[in-house]
């Protein structure tokens, strides 16, 4: 099989892994070497589905001895299979990198022969890139479930980021769909990596020449909608992982109907994109807006409201904290205002040291006043807020607004 053909098959087999970020590492160029990592990451292209392409995201092989029901590469699936050689992948990465197509490599694989055999190949690709080609670009390796701790540790010496995919948000459902897997075997490499990172960071403080150990941390992925797990289950798991395993990112991947004849899986034709999007927004609220998971989903609201974003949903459920005075509220409270993002919150804090802000200032700073107006007071005559209008009115005014925005489209449709 020629190389183009392998790329076609093994890229398509990797496309359901949503992570592509190249951020979190600032590995510098070593004299005589090629490449560097940019702390914030760089996207180099956008695929036809609109997703960023930053890394060469590809599988080493799509052969797999396991049979996870939700995965295209499962053993029982009748598809064309192929495997790279280490040299092919190394040369391809360098060739693409020198042309500025990519920031680096994101390598994963189906399980060939046994976990260690596979993991050893992935580690070898990373080692050759780093040691023979002195490649300083970004490397993200996926750890193979069941791989030995020796190989996981070695992987961390070459990779900027490691990921351990949990895939199914609850252990019971994981066991049902992937009989060969269980939570302990997924979580133990995660803990191992976390401890390694802490330990190497300590040592680096003392000995400057301690090698890097997964400097961009680790991430995981959860599949959404393949199992009946609630949003509360999913977000609690994520919040827990951020807290206990120090994960850099949790990715949510709406289940793509890759298995149409298995009755253990839901019969859907399109992935649950709206829900996936709401989960990402909730994840942002936890990471950048100082929200706790219970404020987003709880016993009374175990699932996210698909019709409004989770921040607005929180505001509508908690009218008593509004209106917030933008000229005196602290950072934490500013971040709760619908229509105010982390950037505009910072700008408000800076700008109000010079003068009291009115709605025109806020608009110029980038606050979405259409939303914010119901939740704030500022330096001008007060307008009707959620207190006077009641949450239900505000909700209907804001969702009506949204519908108006999409009207031209609907109009076009009705014409045809």
């Amino acid at each position, binding site marked *: 099989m020629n190389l183009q053909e392998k790329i076609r098959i093994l890229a398509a087999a990797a496309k359901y892994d949503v992570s592509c970020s190249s951020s979190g590492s600032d590995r510098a*160029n070593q004299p005589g070497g090629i490449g560097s990592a940019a702390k914030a990451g760089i996207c180099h*292209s*956008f695929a036809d*589905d609109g997703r960023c392409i930053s890394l060469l995201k590809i599988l080493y092989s799509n052969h797999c001895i396991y049979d996870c029901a939700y995965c295209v590469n499962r053993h029982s699936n009748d598809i064309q299979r192929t495997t790279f050689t280490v040299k092919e992948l190394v040369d391809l990465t360098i060739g693409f990198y020198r042309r500025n197509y990519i920031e680096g490599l994101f390598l994963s694989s189906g399980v060939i022969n046994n976990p260690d055999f596979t993991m050893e190949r992935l580690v070898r690709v990373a080692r050759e890139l780093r040691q023979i080609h002195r490649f300083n670009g970004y490397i993200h390796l996926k750890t193979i479930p069941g791989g030995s701790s020796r190989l996981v540790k070695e992987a961390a010496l070459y990779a900027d980021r490691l990921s351990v995919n949990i895939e199914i948000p609850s252990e019971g459902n994981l066991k049902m769909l992937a009989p060969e897997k269980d939570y302990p075997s997924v979580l133990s490499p995660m803990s191992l990596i976390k401890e390694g990172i802490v330990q190497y960071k300590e040592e680096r403080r003392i000995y400057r020449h301690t090698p890097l150990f997964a400097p961009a941390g680790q991430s995981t992925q959860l599949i959404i909608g393949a199992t009946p797990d609630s949003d509360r289950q999913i977000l609690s798991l994520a919040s827990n992982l951020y807290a206990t395993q120090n994960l850099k990112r949790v990715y949510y991947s709406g289940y793509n109907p890759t298995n149409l004849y298995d009755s253990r899986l839901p019969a859907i034709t399109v992935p649950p994109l709206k829900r996936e999007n709401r989960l990402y927004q909730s994840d942002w609220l936890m990471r950048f807006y100082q929200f706790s998971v219970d404020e987003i989903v709880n016993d009374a609201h175990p699932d996210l409201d698909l019709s409004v974003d989770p921040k607005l949903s929180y505001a509508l459920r908690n009218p008593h904290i509004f209106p917030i005075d933008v000229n005196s509220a602290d950072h934490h409270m500013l971040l709760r205002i619908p229509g105010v993002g982390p950037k505009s919150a910072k700008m408000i804090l800076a700008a109000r040291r010079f003068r009291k802000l009115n709605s025109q200032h806020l608009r110029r700073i980038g606050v979405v006043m259409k939303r914010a107006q119901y939740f704030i007071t500022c330096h001008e005559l007060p307008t009707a807020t959620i207190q006077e209008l009641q949450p239900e009115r505000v909700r209907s005014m804001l969702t009506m607004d949204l519908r108006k925005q999409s009207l031209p489209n609907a109009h076009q449709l009705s014409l045809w």
Partner: protein
Amino acid sequence: MLEYLYDGTFAGLLTAIFHAFRRKEYPDVILRPQGQRLLFATTHTVETDDVMAQRVLNGIERYGGKTTCEQLLHAFLSQSNNVEILILQYARELFFQKRPIMADLGNSFVLQIHKLDRRVLREVQRVLMFIRFERSADGIYFAPFAPKYDVLPLTVGHFKHRFADQQWVIYDTVRDYGFHYHGKRVEQITINAPAFSRDSGKLSVEMEHENEDDYREMWRVYFRSIAISERLNPTLQRNFMPKRFWKYLTEKKV
């Protein structure tokens, strides 16, 4: 009405600001050579002077710090209408307040400078994202680009650091100049008899390295395969990667 004429360079503008301060006057417009002249105006022509420019720059740095200098340079590069007057206003306010005013976003010209700075930085970022190199027969990696603003100089450091072990050329096809890195230093160049097509950015066939077509094709195959067909979203793709960049993009050009 009072109009200043300057040569269109940043140093020229700083000199103009120096003149305005020294002459204690406030021009209505500061015009680049191609600028639209006023009908009835007193004209003062500014001769660019590096010493005067440096003094203004030092003042800006003293009160506003390096970041302010960079912000003003970026805003200047946007070539936005009347950006010169905006920068003059900013400098006056800065020298009056004698402290950084960057955060005073309730102030309309501070905010405008802030936005122009961001607009230009975004274009810088896009060069880093979308530039594509092709390898020539003599081993030089060549990349044409058509940026909206004159930002190539701001990207040289990045490429020099990243591709330290390969010879490369990045070339602005709109302003017709570029930079060549030959293993040690970066030099500014102009290509007289282009061995590449301005429309496609492609090197002529005899100039191209023999493997180049393979890499191009492999990248295109990868690009097509990585998209999830159940989720096609051309609008989103174009928002992130506007059409104006496609002409030199290996995966998008025809």
